[in-house]
């Protein structure tokens, strides 16, 4: 799904909710992954002028889960380690988005290259 405006985040969240329900996630885990997705989508809008979000249902053994990939072609992040710190923000914000998201999901990966863009991949297992 393309996310280029803030209103795009709502249908994206609704779609994600459908997937989370289909996988059988508890309400708490649904809330966690949707909140995480909301943070990542917002970062993409704010810092990269938008991008793409992909939702996939995945499984490992008996465990099902949801994988989300956020891809943007924005400015990238010069120091990813710093950006992952609680309270670090170049947007005069709380700097909670990335570290908070990492706490809300089961697996978190961020790849970023200055001038090329940023890709964040997260997985939330059904019971994770």
């Amino acid at each position, binding site marked *: 799904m393309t996310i280029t405006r803030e209103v795009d985040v709502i249908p994206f969240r609704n779609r994600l909710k459908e997937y989370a329900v289909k996988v059988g996630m508890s*309400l708490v885990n649904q*809330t966690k992954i949707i*909140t995480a997705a*909301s943070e990542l989508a*917002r970062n993409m809008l704010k810092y990269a002028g938008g991008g793409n979000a992909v939702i996939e249902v995945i499984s490992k053994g008996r465990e099902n889960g949801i994988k989300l990939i956020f891809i943007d072609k924005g400015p990238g992040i010069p120091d990813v380690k710093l950006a992952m710190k609680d309270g670090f923000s170049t947007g005069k914000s709380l700097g909670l988005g990335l570290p*908070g998201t990492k706490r809300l999901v089961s697996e978190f990966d961020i790849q970023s290259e200055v001038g090329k863009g940023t890709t964040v991949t997260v997985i939330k297992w059904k019971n994770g």
Partner: protein
Amino acid sequence: MEKIPILRMGSLLLVTIQVDLYDRLAENLEADLVQTINKTGAKGVLIDISAVSIIDSFMGRIIGNIATMSKILDAETVVVGMQPAVAITLVELGLPLKGVLSALNVEKGIELLTRKIADDKEPEDADDGDSE
């Protein structure tokens, strides 16, 4: 454009958020509320979020801002009806709703606000019960 209605009940303002807010709508609500507090001299703001299923850092910040602004205008803010899943998620996200009072439901919220407003009038009554 959609707008979130602000109801006036005596010296309290009541806002029920029934849709998942996107950013502009939330920012408008913040501005509207500040204006309404100014205009009406309201002493308390009650925000019912029982229908809100997601609060991310942006929404959290808006709620925090509303509380801070209200405080400056001498009004208290109480958030009521936060869903348990939302509360759990907020803690893990690391977003403390600083300075925001909360209550289980609208009734309890009104009670809390009324008590707070009375306390503020009589500062000698220093022992106030914030938490439910």
